[in-house]
Every structure is written in C-alpha cells, then in structure tokens.
C-alpha cells in the first residue's frame, strides 16, 4: 500500500514535472520566437534607418524660411537714417538726421540711451560703412565729416548678461576735412579698415571729393591719421546714391534715373572713372542701392519693384566693366530699403507697400515675400546672425524673428551654372570653404557628379570587356581543373582592399604610366592584336605538340604570351618616345595636341578602379552563363552549330539579363568607390573629359571635406546630400540588377 502510494506520488510528481517542463519549453519557444522576430525586424529596420537618417539630415536644406509672429512698437522720434541691431538681438539702434543716436530695447522698444554725436556744424549728409563694422558718419555744412561707430559691450554682473551700447570715434573726435573748399557735404560714403580709411562725398555744388586717411604710428603710442583729399572727375547726372566698397577700391555714384558712374579708386593717388552704365530701362528709377556683404556686388532696387545684382567683371584684356548678373523676383511696390546679411550672400529688401522679401544672391532664390506692415518701409536692419529683422514704417518699428538656415540652396545653385562674384562668366564650381566671411561658397554638385561618372566610365571601359569575356571563357570553355584555380584567384582579387589598389595606383602606376606613357598605350592596343597573332600561329604548330594541351587551357597558354607582349611594349616605350615624340611625350601632348597631362589622371583611375570592378562583374556574369541549362547548349550543338555559334546565339542571349545585372552592380561599385579615386586622382573638381586629367568624385569629396565641416551647417548637409545621392544611385543600380537576376533564376528553373 505504502509503496503503491509512493509510486503513485512519484508518478504524479513526474507528471507535474513533465507538465511544468512542457510549459517551460513552450514558453521558451515562444520567447525565442518573439526575440528572434524582434531581432530580425530590428536589424532590418536599422538598415532602413540609414536611408531615413540621411534624408532627415538633408531635409532642412529644402525647408522654406519661416517668420515668427512679430511685434510692433513705437519708433523713437526723429528722421531715421540707419537702423541696426546687435548680435544677441537685445539692443537696437537708430541714427537720426539730427545727429542723435537712439539705443532701445528690442523686447518692448523702451529707450536705453540717447547719445548725441558731437557735431561742430549742421549735418547735411549721411553715410554708412560695411554693416558689420558698425561705422557711419555725418557730412557737415562746412565740408567736414565726423565718423562714429556703434559697438556693444557685454558684461555679466550677477551672472546675468548685460549689453551696454557705446558710441566711438574711430578717426578721433576731430572732424575730417573732406572738402578743402569747405562746401557742404550732401551725400557721404565711408569705410574704415585697420589702418586706412576713406570718405567720399558729393558736395552741395555737385563735385565728387575723396579723402583718404592713413594711420600713422607714433613712437609715443597713440598716433593720428594722415589725410589726403582730392577731387574726382565729376559724375554724370544728378547723383542720388554714393557707395564705396569695404576694401576702398571701388566707388559708385548713381543717379536716380539709373546711371551708375563706376570709379576705380584702388590707387588713391590716381582715381579713375571706369565707365558709366545704365542700370534700369527707361521709365523706372532707382529707389534703393546697397552693397551685398563683401562689397563686391551692388543691389539695385527700382521704383517698379525690380531687384538686380551687378558687379564688375574682368574681361580678357584685364579690363573691368560693370555687369548685370542676375535679377530677382520683383516686389509689388517700389524697393525702399536693403539689408544684406552679415555672413552670407543673402539680403532682405522692403518696398513702399510694407512688403518684406528675403533673397539669396548665389542661389538666385526668393526665399520669402511677406507683407509685414500696412505702410511703406523706410528703414530695414538685419540681425548679425540673420535671424531677425527690424523694419521702420509709419506703423512703428517692427521686430520679427526669421528662421532661414539654408537659403544658399536651390536647384540652380546645386546643379546649374552660377555666376559667382569676381568670375567672368557663369560656371560649375565646387569650392566649399575659405578663411573669411566674405567668401561666396560654391556648392555646385555638377563637377563632382561629372567626376564620378567620368571615373566610373573609364573604369567600366577597362573592366567590362575584360570581365565579361573572362566570364564567358571561364564558364563555357575553360577546363574544370583550371576553373578551380581561376575562381579563387578572382575571389582574392575581389577581396583586395581598395586602399591597396589606390595606393599602388597613386604611388606606383601613376609615375610608371608617366614614364612609360607610350608603352602603356601601346600595351592596351597590342594585347588583343598580339593574342590574335598568337592564336593564328598556334594553328601551325605541329599537331603532336598541340595535342598535348587539351581544349580549355588556352588561358594558361596565353599567360607567357601576354607577359612577353607587355614586356615588349614597355621596352619599346622609350625608343618610340624618342622617334615619334621628340623624347618627351608630355611636352608633345601639350605643344602639339593641346592636352595637358596630370600625373594622377583618368587613365590611372580607370585601370585601378577597373581592377576593383572586374571581379564583381566577372563573378555575377560567370554565374549567369554557367547557369544556362545544359540541354539548351547540347541541343544547339546537336543541330550542328559550332561551340562559338552556340555561345553567341544561345548562351549569351539566354544569360544576357544576368550579364546586364553584372554590369549594373559593377557600375554601382565604380560610382561609390572612394579610396582609389582619392589616392589616384589629384582631387581637383574640374569638368574636363580628357583621359589625361584628374577629377574629384562625390565620394572622395565626402572623405576629404566631411571631417572639417561644421555640424548642421549647409556644407555639412550638402555632404549628406552627396551621400544620399550616392546611396540612391547605387540602390537603383543594385535593385535593378537584383530584380533582373531573380527573374532570370525563375526563367532558368522553368527552362
């Protein structure tokens, strides 16, 4: 009895344990299923993430600009002449005709300080320097001028930021004697640099006078300014605007009816009037004129709302002339004010109907046009970081924040020809960075894309014939024992790191091809011919010898032949160079053919990258040809076709989709390859299809510039865009290839 119960208990326990184990196993199975499912989906999502992350970074480039809701407050009294703002957007400044400078809080318009400029005589004219410097000045009734600068001191009392405005006299508190004849200065323009300054003015009687100042260091410290002033050739017409660039090299005197008098004052002792051009068609007048930042381009605004950019262009004879470079979408009313951004080539414009427009010059783009006031805007100021503006109208002062991160991007600035400042004509250029703020970045992806395609083209030119012919032979004619050697060799070829190919191309092949250029060219031509001759001769060998080598070993036989041809071509290189090219083929190319020769050129890239692409194309094409069902070939042979006819008419035709996909995948690899082009080209973004010139590709450009680009800047996002372009291009090539291959597989299995 007791043993019975014990047994029973034990069995029951076992059953329970079994049950528990079963449940545990089922839970484990379920857990594993979920975990693996989760893991698998996560990995696949991670892959998708790459695409979306690239897109996420690129996206802001194409976002339109936005204005935050603004506020309007009453403007300080007085006739306004200049409106400006400091970097933190806390303090605004308004200079008035009476020589009073008003500083106010932008938060509510409440005044901070009202500083009167010390004027020895009545002010009659006014002018401002480059906005970034904060320089402006008053022309006086006695022919003198006084120059001031608004500046902001930042202190942190009690850990809170305090910005206090200051008014300085950079040329000293003594007025500058601009007009020796002491006539009143009606119009004024001025620039102050480190140790030179210049003031130009139109006097009441219509003369144009120029005063140059040079800093004099005295041994006792301090030091004064050395003044020399002269009268310039009088401008044509009734001058309404006078502007001098920040380097004190050019001076523009402009009439209201659209005549621009262009003076070259780069040599202060010998100022010249270069030309007078008409900037506007008959019937409209210039209503606003301003420099773009950097002082090269003039912005011309008309009463008809038109906005145009002009700058001096140098022609072939080294002569400058003023050219209209581009126009922008017009504003509805007459343009009244411009405000160029401090660090970019963008600008703001306002008209007499209260419309505000934001533009970018390089991109030729209208970023935004919005009605912001009910009456005409007379003064416009932009924050130094271009993230806010101040506009003065009859409504009062309006302040509004701007979100405009990437105005320099447009379809034309990325892909089109752009007329950049100081260039003779519109061009495709990539030049992303430079040391100073006035630089106009050149973000044309065209030369890079061109370089990418050029490199890929030459690589494919070399690789496609070799790889496909090799694949045909290996799959169809080659003896199986040799195949077992060849396939791993090709796999090793595929595995060779591109950095090694690139380094050999740059450090060995490039100098080699330069020294033996005739030999390399001869080699490429002599190889096919030499092979044909060798094959022809082979027929005349005694049959006993030929029979020793079974079919399918031609490739092995040809190795010594090819080596011999190669050696011969290189050995003949220098004699040929002596006989035909006068001993220096590079000189001959330049002098006779007009072709310049870079050591690291497309020929070297084509050979090296071709080498990298051959195995990719080879393996896939070989797979496709080898996979052609054997009953097709056997049928063809049985009908009396020769092996070559069978190959050409049956095998290749059947396998052609596979060969196509092989070429596509090869192309994808050639387009994205980085290290080889980085090392085997000079990386200069030129647009020249010559085989003896270098190039810069999208991928190499990323590798060169990415580490230095500032996070979230336009440059950074454009590099991401280049990455995205590469990603999409290869994705298209590969998907196409993959779909074709899958179809082919289905076809083979149905045959």
């Amino acid at each position: 009895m007791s043993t019975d119960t014990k047994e029973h208990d034990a069995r029951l326990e076992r059953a329970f344990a079994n049950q528990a184990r079963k449940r545990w196993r089922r839970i484990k199975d379920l857990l594993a299923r979920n975990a693996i499912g989760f893991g698998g989906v996560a990995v696949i999502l991670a892959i998708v993430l790459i695409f979306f992350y690239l897109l996420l970074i690129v996206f802001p480039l194409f976002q339109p600009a936005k204005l935050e809701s603004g506020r309007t407050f009453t403007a300080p009294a007085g006739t306004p002449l200049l409106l400006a703002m400091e970097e933190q957007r806390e303090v605004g400044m308004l200079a008035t005709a009476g020589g009073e400078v008003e500083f106010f809080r932008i938060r509510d318009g409440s005044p901070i300080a009202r500083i009167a400029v010390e004027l020895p005589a009545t002010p009659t004219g006014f002018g401002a320097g480059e906005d970034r410097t904060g320089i402006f000045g008053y022309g006086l009734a006695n022919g003198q001028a006084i120059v001031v600068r608004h500046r902001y001191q930042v202190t942190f009392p009690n850990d809170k930021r305090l910005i206090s405005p200051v008014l300085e006299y950079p040329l000293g508190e003594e007025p500058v004697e601009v007009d020796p004849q002491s006539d009143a200065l009606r119009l004024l323009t001025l620039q102050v640099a480190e140790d030179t300054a210049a003031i130009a003015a139109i006097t009441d009687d219509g003369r144009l006078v120029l005063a140059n100042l040079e800093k004099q260091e005295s041994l006792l410290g301090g030091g004064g300014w050395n003044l020399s002033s002269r009268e310039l050739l009088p401008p044509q017409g009734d001058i309404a605007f006078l502007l001098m660039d920040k380097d004190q090299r050019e001076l523009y005197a402009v009439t209201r009816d659209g005549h621009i008098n262009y003076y070259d004052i780069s040599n202060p002792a010998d100022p010249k009037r270069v030309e007078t051009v008409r900037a506007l068609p008959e019937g409209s007048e210039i209503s606003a004129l301003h420099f773009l930042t950097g002082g090269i381009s003039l912005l011309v605004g008309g009463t008809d709302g038109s906005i145009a950019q002009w700058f001096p262009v140098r022609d072939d004879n080294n002569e400058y002339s003023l050219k209209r470079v581009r126009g922008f979408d017009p504003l509805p009313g007459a343009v009244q004010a411009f405000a160029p951004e401090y660090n970019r080539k963008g600008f703001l414009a306002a008209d007499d109907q209260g419309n505000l427009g934001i533009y970018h010059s390089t991109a030729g783009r209208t970023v935004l046009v919005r009605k912001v006031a009910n009456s005409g805007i007379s003064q416009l100021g932009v924050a130094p970081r271009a993230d806010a503006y101040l506009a003065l109208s009859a409504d009062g002062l309006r302040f509004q924040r701007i979100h405009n991160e990437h105005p320099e991007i447009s379809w034309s600035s990325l892909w089109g020809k752009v007329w950049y400042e100081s260039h003779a004509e519109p061009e495709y250029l990539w030049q992303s960075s430079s040391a100073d703020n006035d630089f106009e970045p050149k973000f044309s992806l065209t030369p890079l894309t061109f370089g990418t395609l050029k490199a890929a083209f030459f690589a494919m030119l070399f690789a496609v014939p070799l790889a496909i012919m090799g694949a045909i032979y290996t799959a169809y004619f080659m003896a199986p024992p040799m195949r077992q050697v060849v396939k791993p060799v090709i796999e090793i070829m595929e595995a060779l790191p591109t950095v090694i190919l690139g380094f050999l191309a740059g450090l060995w092949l490039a100098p080699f091809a330069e020294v033996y250029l005739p030999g390399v060219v001869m080699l490429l031509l002599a190889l096919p011919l030499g092979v044909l001759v060798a094959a022809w001769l082979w027929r005349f060998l005694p049959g006993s010898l030929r029979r020793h080598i079974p079919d399918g070993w031609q490739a092995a036989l040809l190795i010594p032949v090819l080596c011999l041809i190669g050696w011969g071509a290189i050995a003949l290189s220098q004699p040929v160079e002596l006989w035909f090219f006068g001993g220096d083929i590079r000189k001959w190319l330049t002098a006779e053919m007009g072709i310049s020769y870079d050591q690291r050129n497309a020929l070297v890239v084509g050979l090296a990258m071709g080498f990298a692409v051959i195995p990719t194309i080879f393996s896939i094409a070989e797979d496709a040809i080898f996979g052609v069902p054997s009953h097709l070939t056997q049928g063809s042979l049985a009908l009396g076709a020769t092996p070559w006819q069978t190959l050409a008419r049956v095998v290749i035709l059947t396998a052609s989709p596979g060969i196509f996909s092989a070429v596509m995948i090869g192309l994808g690899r050639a387009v994205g390859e980085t290290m080889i082009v980085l090392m085997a080209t000079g990386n200069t973004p030129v647009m020249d299809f010559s085989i003896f010139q270098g190039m810069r590709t999208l991928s190499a450009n990323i590798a060169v510039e990415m580490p230095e680009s500032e996070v979230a800047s336009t440059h950074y996002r454009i590099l991401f865009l280049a990455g995205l372009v590469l990603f999409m291009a290869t994705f298209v090539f590969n998907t196409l290839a993959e779909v074709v291959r899958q179809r082919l597989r289905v076809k083979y299995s149905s045959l």
Partner: protein
Amino acid sequence: MSSIGKWFRDGEPLIWLNAAAVSASIIMVVGLLGLIAVRGLAHFWPAPLIQANYSENGSEPVRIVGEITASETVPRQRLIDAGVRLNTDTPLVERHLIKIGNRDAYGFDFRWVIDEGLSQRAEPAELMKVERREWGNLYGYLREVRESGTRVANGAEAWKEFQDRIARASDLFSRIRAIEKDDIGAINYAIEKLRLQQRGLEIDGKDTRQNLAELDQQRKVLDAEYAVLRDQLATLNTQINRDSFTAEIMDGREIEVPLAKVVRAIRPNTMSRSQKLRHYFVKVWEFVADDPREANTEGGIFPAIFGTVMMVIVMSIFVTPFGVVAAVYLREYARQGMLTRIIRIAVNNLAGVPSIVYGVFGLGFFVYFLGGNLDRLFYPEALPAPTFGSPGILWSSLTLALLTLPVVIVATEEGLSRIPKSIREGSLALGATKIETLWRTVLPMASPAMMTGLILAIARAAGEVAPLMLVGVVKLAPSLPLDGNAPFLHLERKFMHLGFHIYDVGFQSPNVEAARPLVYATALLLVLVIVFLNLAAIAIRNRLREKYRALEGS
C-alpha cells in the same frame, strides 16, 4: 585567305581573346601581389652603401654617400624639359635616386643623380648607416666616440666602443620611455579622473569641503608620486645624454650626434650574409612590434595592427549575433512571400552601397547623435570636451558592423538553406519545439556557414578605410584603446588602422619618398591578412558544400 575567313567565322579568335581576358586578370592579380611582396620584403634587407664622386654638367666633382633606392632610364629630352642641365647627348639617360640621409645637415634626404656623372664608385667598408630617432638616417664615417664631450675612442677601436655605448643608451632609453609612457601616463590619467570627479561633484552640487578635501588628498599623493618619477627621469636623462659620437659626412663636415638619438648603427658593406639575415629579422620584428617614429615614416606599425585587430573584434561582437538572428528570422520564422523577397533585395543592395555612405551615416548618427546624447547624459563633467561625442573605436566598430551585416546575413542564410528539410522535420517529429530544433540541430550544422560569413566580414572590415576616416581613425593615436588604466578598455578613444596608415603615410606624409618602403611593407601585411582570411573562408565553404552533398545523397 579563305582559311582566315573560316577561322574567324568559327569564332576561334574570339575564344582566344576571351581566354586572354582571363589570363590578363590572373597576371594582374599575381603581378600585383608579387609587386607588393617584393617591395615590401626588400625594404628590411640592408642595402650596400656606396661612395662616389659626382659631377653634374661638368662641374667640380663632389662626394656622394648613401644608398641607391631606385634607378631608371629616361629620355634625355624629358630631363631637359624638367630643368635638369645635361652635357651628354645620349638619347637615354640612366639616373639613380640616392638616399643621402642626414636631413639635419642637407635639408633633404634624397637626391637624383645621373649615372654618367658618377665616378670612382666604391663600397667602403667603414661606411656606416646610423638610424636615428630624429632627422632620419645618418650616413658617414665614424670619427670619435665621446663621453661628456671628451674623446674616449677613435680609429679602429671606436666601432666596438660605439656599439657598446649604443646598447647602453638604448637600454636607458627604453627605461625612460617606460616611465614616461606607463608610469607618468597612469598618473596623468588618474589626475584627469580626479579633475572630472571634482567637476562632477560641482555639477551635482555635492562639492562640499569634505569631498573636495578628499580629492585634494588623493591629488597630493599623485603629485608626490609624480615628483619621485620626475627625479628618476632627470637622472636617467643626464645618464643618457652622457655619450655622443662624431661622424664625417659626405661634404666633409664632421657632425656630433648624442647617442640618445641613436637607434642602431650598422656597416652593411662589411656584414656577412648571416649578419644581414639577423639584421633583417630584427628589422621585421621592429616593424611589427614597435611604435612609429618620425611622423610614421620610420619604426614600426604596432599601434595600427593593434587598432585594426581591436576594431575588428569589437565589430565581430556586434555583427555576429545580429546577422545570425536576422538570417534565422528571414529563413526560419518569417512567412516567405513578397515582404521577405523585398527584404532580401534590400539586404543584397546594402552590400552594394558605397562604404563612404556608411561613414557619413556613422558620423551623423553614431558620433554626433548617439555620442552627443551619451555625453550629455553620462559624461556632463567632461563637457564641452566630448567623450563619446567624437569619433572613436566604438563608433568605427558599429559602423563597420552595419557595413558587414549583409555579408553575415547572406552567408548564414545560404548555410541555413542548404540544410535539408528532413533534418528539421525529423527533429520536430520527435517532439522538439522549434527553438530546440534550431538550437540543437540546425544552427550547429549551419555554424561553418556563419563562420564563413564572419570571416568574410572581418576580411572586408580589415581592409575598409573610407568610412573609418570619418568615424574614428587618426594618423597617430597617443594611447591604445586597451591599456593598464581602469577600466582598461577605452572604446571612446581614436585608434590607428593599417589601411588608413597606408593612405596617410603614402599620401599625407611630409616625406613620401622616405616612407614609401614602409607603405609597401604595411600593404604587404594587410594583403597577407586578407588573403589568408579569404582563403580560409573559401576552404570552409568548400568543405561545407561537400558535407551537404553527402547529406543530401543519403
């Protein structure tokens, strides 16, 4: 003539042309490997040193001393166009690139000479080559060995004395370096950690007087240790600077060099073959096991090897489980249909996406986004200096893991698909759950396939450079990512990499000519590793195929 026509019609010549394409590919691969091997291996062999009188364009002959590193024949016209003045009229001119060394004395250490201008060429026995820690090699004749500026040996017995004293200086040098790198490095690391601790306390508002005093206490201990080491260093430095030697160089000047700057000195012209062989292996060992010198153009590449291996290991840790899980999911769990087909196409596609795109992604997502947020959360005390928010070995490994993920997935999937259905069905029929079937039978059988995938992934990662340039390699890393300072593994550090080393030394180095042999040697090492890995993968795969063929047959 008709026989030629028939020959062409039969397609015979085209078959030969096709064959030639294969031959050309094979010649290129073998030739490339041969070129790298020859150039890479020859570098360590002590070349004979020559002395000759050289006159260019009929000028007064000058003495030239050095080793010939390259010779070539060029058309005379080219040299004239390049601005070289010649007084011969042979159409082809032979010229040599001679490494004359002594960069400190001449300003440059290579020189092209025209063969015809050389006369009285000789290989004098006393000519020596001194490898230095600065300014490259010195070539010349030993004159005196000095101790504290006074002569201790000259003439015939100087060489022996010279060698003995070099050995002593080298010994001192390694002791100095051990102190500087290991001991002082550890102290600096600890002091930096204390600084971060203090900053962390300040951020948390726990910078009480007691806590700060504690930190100060620790700092004082470290400072005291540092003072001891500094004294030791000072004595060692005076000891190492005791000796010097003078040598006559090719323009007849006599220059004095402290022995502290000397790595080794040899007289290759008097060395026997076995001595040369020994020297060869010493140099090879130095190459593999030593740190680089002179802006990477001399010395070894140990940090690059270490960095590559470490990066690959970390990458394997990431890529293997994820790749296998994804493959198992795709093959064993997901319902086969349109979706899995699309996924497979996408995975295959990813294998074709340019590696630089992965680099761009890695930099943006891993470094700036993930790293930046990690810093803000866990390392606020170090800010604004980034910890994980700048390129480093962890991000490099992750980027390459993503890059090689398709390789592992494809290989594993292929392995899984080759396992006969009968095996799974048998296991399930015996009552095993799905995971048990997978875990006990399928995965073990597929493990060689995973191995193949992993090996291929490693081979690809070891040779990939472009993405790494964005996410973590540097030309010279001050410290290895693995060292004796807790927590020992520093995944946030930047590292050196063989592939990048080739690029950097070959193309960014100030003295490319001097670095060239080293680049070839580095390339050879990298190629050997990759060829070996690939051959291993091929062998495993072939064995595997045989095995399954047997399985399917039964």
